[in-house]
C-alpha cells in the first residue's frame, strides 16, 4: 500500500503545468497606452516685445512685455535691460504657460516690467539677444511714445488684487481676489496660471473659486473675472505681494459661476501676462502668553459637535471609533486635528486627513473613560486662545477572558491538578491585622522584652518578700499607717456629723494604732497610759496629755472624772489632730 502511494507521489510532477500568462487580443497593449501630444521645443523660437500701452503721458505707467515661445528655464534672461535715460523700470514679473496647438504643446514665457517715463519723447529699447535652448534668439526692439497730453489715454490693462484682511496673524488664512475687469466691449476673459508673487505667503490653489460677476473696480461697477484664493502668511511683519496671470480667452480651467450678463469673446485665446499692483498687509505673530495645550495652528472660530463613540462597551483590544466633527469660520480644509495624546490605557490612531476622528483601542480593562484629547484654536477676533478639548467619554472595558475550566487531560501526571476555578468564599475567613508579618514590626520586639521584665519583677518581689520576712516591724508600721489613715477619715466624718461618741471612739482607736507598732502590741490592748508614755515628758502634763486623758476618759466611762458634753469633746478635734501628728511622726 505504501509503495503504491509512494510511486504515485513520484509521478505527480508529470501532471503539473506552468501557469499560462493571460492572452491579450492583438493591439490590446497599444490600446492601454494613451497618446500624449509632444511638447514642441524644436520649432525655431520666436520672440516679441512691446510696450502696453505704446503711448502714454509722462509719469504714466506702462508695461514693457517680452514674450518668447520657449520654456522659462531655457531662457538666459539678463538681470538688467539696457534702457534709455528717461525710462524708469519698476517691479518685474515673469510667467510661463503651455499652449495647446492642436497636436502639440508649446511653451510660452512672458517677461513684464513696469515702466514709467519721466520726460516726453520717443524711447526705444533696442533689440538684444538672449540664449534660448543654447541658441541665440533676438528680442526685437520696442518703442514707447511719451507725450505731454494724451487725450485718448487708455490705462495699461492689469489685474486688480483685493484682500479680505490687511492685519492678520501668522498662519491666519485670508481670502485674496484676483480680478480681471472686462476689456473693451465688456468682453470677459479667463485667467490662467494665476499666482501670487511675494515672500512669506503660502497660496492654497486647491481652495480657489472662480466666478464672473460685477465688482467695484476703482469706484466703477463693471463685470470681471474673479478668482478667489486662500493665502496664509508664514512670515511676520509687513508683507507686500502682487498677483499675475495670463489672459486665456474662454479657456476656463475650473468650474465657474457667472452672475449677470457678460460677453465672452470667441476665437483663439491670446495669452498676455498681466500683473496687479502691489498690496501690503501686516502680519502679527501669535501671542505666546495664554497658549493652551493641543494648539495645532488652527486660527479662526471653530466649534465641535459632541464626540460620538461607536460603542461604550468594548473589550480589551477591540477598536472603537471616536467621531469628531468640527465647524467654524476658519479654514476647515487646513484644520490640523489634535495630536492623539499618549496614554498607557489606550492606543489612539488618528484618522487620515481630512477626517478628524480617532480610532481608540483599549489596552486594559482599567480604562473607565476615553482619554481627553486636548485641542485649542486661536481666535483672531479676540486675539486669545480658546479651549476646544475633546472631553472624555465613559466606557466599560471588558477584560480578556481567562479560562475558568481546563479540558480534562489524559496524562496521569496532570490528573491531580484542579480543572476548575473554585467558587466564591462565603465568609471572609481567617483574618490578619496586616499582611506585614510580626517579625518585621518594631512593637513585637518590645513585646518579647515583656517576659524579661516579668522575670526581673518576679525576682525583685521574691527578694522583697524575704526582706520583709526578716524585718516584720516594717510591715507593722506600714499597716499601722494605713489603719491610722482610715481612722483619721472616720474621725473627720464624725466631726462633720457632730457625732461625739464616734469621735471619741475613733480618736482613741487612732491613738492606740499609732503607738502599737513600737511595742509590737495589739492596739486593742493599749490604754491611755501607754499613749501618754509615748508622748514626751513635757507633753504628758500639758494640753496634749490632758487631751489624751479626756479622750480616753470619755471612751471609757470608768475613767471619766466628770461627764462632758458632746460639744466639749468635739472641740478637742484640733488638739487630737496635733497629738495624732506627734504620734504619727514617731511611728
Amino acid at each position, binding site marked *: 500500500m505504501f509503495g503504491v502511494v509512494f510511486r504515485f507521489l513520484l509521478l505527480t510532477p508529470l501532471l503539473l503545468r506552468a501557469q499560462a500568462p493571460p492572452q491579450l487580443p492583438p493591439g490590446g497593449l497599444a490600446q492601454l497606452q494613451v497618446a500624449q501630444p509632444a511638447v514642441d521645443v524644436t520649432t525655431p523660437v520666436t520672440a516679441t516685445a512691446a510696450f502696453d500701452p505704446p503711448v502714454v503721458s509722462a509719469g504714466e505707467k506702462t508695461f514693457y512685455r517680452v514674450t518668447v515661445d520657449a520654456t522659462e528655464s531655457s531662457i538666459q534672461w539678463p538681470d538688467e535691460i539696457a534702457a534709455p535715460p528717461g525710462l524708469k523700470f519698476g517691479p518685474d514679473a515673469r510667467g510661463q504657460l503651455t499652449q495647446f496647438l492642436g497636436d502639440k504643446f508649446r511653451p510660452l514665457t512672458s517677461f513684464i516690467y513696469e515702466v514709467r517715463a519721466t520726460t516726453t519723447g520717443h524711447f526705444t529699447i533696442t533689440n538684444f539677444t538672449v540664449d534660448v535652448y543654447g541658441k541665440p534668439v533676438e528680442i526685437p526692439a520696442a518703442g514707447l511714445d511719451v507725450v505731454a497730453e494724451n487725450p485718448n489715454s487708455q490705462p495699461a490693462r492689469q489685474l486688480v488684487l483685493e484682500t479680505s484682511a490687511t492685519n492678520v496673524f501668522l498662519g491666519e488664512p485670508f481670502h485674496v481676489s484676483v480680478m480681471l475687469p472686462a476689456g473693451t466691449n465688456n468682453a470677459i476673459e479667463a485667467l490662467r496660471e494665476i499666482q501670487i508673487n511675494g515672500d512669506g505667503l503660502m497660496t492654497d490653489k486647491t481652495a480657489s473659486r472662480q466666478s464672473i460677476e460685477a465688482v467695484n473696480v476703482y469706484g466703477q461697477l463693471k463685470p470681471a473675472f474673479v478668482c478667489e484664493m486662500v493665502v496664509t502668511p508664514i512670515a511676520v511683519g509687513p508683507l507686500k505681494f502682487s498677483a499675475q496671470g495670463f489672459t486665456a480667452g474662454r479657456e476656463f480651467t475650473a468650474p465657474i459661476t457667472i452672475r449677470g450678463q457678460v460677453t465672452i469673446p470667441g476665437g483663439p485665446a491670446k495669452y498676455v501676462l498681466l500683473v496687479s499692483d502691489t498690496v501690503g498687509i501686516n502680519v502679527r505673530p501669535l501671542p505666546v502668553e495664554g497658549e493652551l495645550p493641543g494648539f495645532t495652528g488652527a486660527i479662526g472660530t471653530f466649534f465641535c459637535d459632541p464626540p460620538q463613540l461607536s460603542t461604550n462597551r468594548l473589550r480589551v483590544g477591540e477598536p472603537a471609533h471616536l467621531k469628531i466633527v468640527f465647524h467654524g469660520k476658519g479654514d476647515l480644509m487646513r484644520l490640523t486635528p489634535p495630536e492623539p495624546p499618549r496614554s498607557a490605557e489606550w492606543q489612539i490612531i488618528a484618522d487620515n486627513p481630512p477626517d478628524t476622528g480617532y480610532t481608540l483601542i483599549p489596552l486594559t*480593562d482599567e480604562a473607565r473613560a476615553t482619554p481627553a484629547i486636548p485641542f485649542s484654536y486661536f481666535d483672531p477676533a479676540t486675539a486669545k486662545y480658546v479651549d476646544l478639548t475633546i472631553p472624555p467619554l465613559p466606557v466599560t472595558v471588558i477584560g480578556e477572558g481567562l479560562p475558568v475550566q481546563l479540558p480534562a487531560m489524559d496524562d496521569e501526571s496532570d490528573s491531580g491538578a*484542579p480543572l476548575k476555578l473554585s467558587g466564591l468564599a462565603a*465568609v*471572609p475567613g481567617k483574618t490578619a491585622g496586616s*499582611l506585614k508579618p510580626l517579625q518585621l514590626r518594631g512593637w513585637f520586639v518590645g513585646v518579647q522584652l515583656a517576659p524579661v521584665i516579668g522575670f526581673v519583677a518576679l525576682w525583685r518581689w521574691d527578694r522583697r518578700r524575704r526582706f520583709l520576712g526578716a524585718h516584720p516591724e516594717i510591715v507593722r508600721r506600714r499597716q499601722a499607717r494605713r489603719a491610722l489613715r482610715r481612722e483619721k477619715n472616720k474621725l473627720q466624718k464624725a466631726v462633720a456629723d457632730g457625732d461625739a461618741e464616734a469621735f471619741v471612739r475613733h480618736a482613741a482607736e487612732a491613738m492606740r494604732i499609732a503607738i502599737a507598732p513600737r511595742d509590737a502590741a495589739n492596739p486593742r490592748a493599749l490604754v491611755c497610759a501607754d499613749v501618754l508614755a509615748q508622748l514626751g515628758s513635757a507633753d504628758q502634763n500639758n494640753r496634749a496629755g490632758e487631751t489624751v486623758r479626756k479622750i480616753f476618759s470619755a471612751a471609757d466611762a470608768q475613767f471619766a472624772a466628770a461627764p462632758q458634753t458632746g460639744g466639749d469633746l468635739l472641740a478637742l478635734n484640733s488638739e487630737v489632730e496635733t497629738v495624732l501628728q506627734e504620734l504619727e511622726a514617731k511611728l
Partner: protein
Amino acid sequence: MKRRGFIFGWSTGLRPGVLAKAGSAPGRRPALLLAVLVCAATACQAATNDFFAQGVELSRAGQFPEAAAAFEKSARVRPAAGTLVNLGIAEWRRGHAGAAILAWEQARWIDPFDPRAGADLEFARQAAQLDAPQLKWFETASTWLPPNAWAWLAGASLWLAVGLMTLPGILRRRKAGWQQALAALAFGIFLFCITANLGVVSRTQIGFVLKKNAALLLTPTGEAEVVSTLNAGEPARRLRTRGNYFFIRTAFASGWVSREQFGLVCPEQPDTGAATPVQVDNLQTRPL
C-alpha cells in the same frame, strides 16, 4: 465581672445605654477604653463585611471589575483569606492573571491551610503555564504555619525555656527533671522557629508580575533599555528598590521593573496592592 458583662453586651449592640453608667464611676476608665476599642473593632468588622458582601454580590452579577474593587477595599480594611480568594477569582475573571495569583498567594500567606487558595493557584499556574516561586528549605518550612504563628511560637518557646531554667533558681526551688526536659524541648522548638522566621522574612521579598508583558529594564529609568518582557503572574524576588522601580530576579533574568507592574506578597504599604483602586462607595449591582 458584672460591669465587664455589661460592656461587652453593649459592644455587641445589646445595651447602648450602659456605657455612660459604666464610665461615670471612678476607676472605670479602662473599661470605657476597652469598650471603645471593641466598638471600633466591631464597626471596622462590619464595614469589612459590607464590602465583602458587596463584592460577592457583584461577582455573582458578573461585574468583576467592581467586585474586585470591593474585595480589595475589604482586604485593605482587614485582610482575610476568604476575601483575598474572592479577590483573586474576580481578578482572574476580569483577565488579570498577575493580580489574581498575587491575591491567592496573599490568601495563603494569611492562612496556609486554605484549600481554595492553593487549588486556585495550582489551577491558574496550569492554565497560564507559570511556575510557582522557588523556595529554599527554610522558606518551605515557613509555609507550614502562618507567619505570625512562627513569631509567637518562637517567643513562647524561648521564654518557656528561659523560664524553666531560671525560675526555680529565682524562687529557690529545686529543678525538677521534667522541667529540664521541657526546657530542652522548648529550646529546640525555638531553634527551629528561628529558621522558619528567617524564611518568613525572606518570603516577604517574593512578588509577582502584575501586568502582561511587563518590561524588565536594564536601568531604573523611564527610557531604559528593555531586557526582557515578563508574563503576568511570573514570580520574582525583589533585591533592592530605587525610586519607582524594583530590582527583581526571576528564574531566568534580572532587571528593574516599575512598582506598578510588580506586587509583593507582603506590600510595603498597608494594602493588598493587587488591583487598581476604584471608587466603590456607591456601587450598584446591575442585572445580567
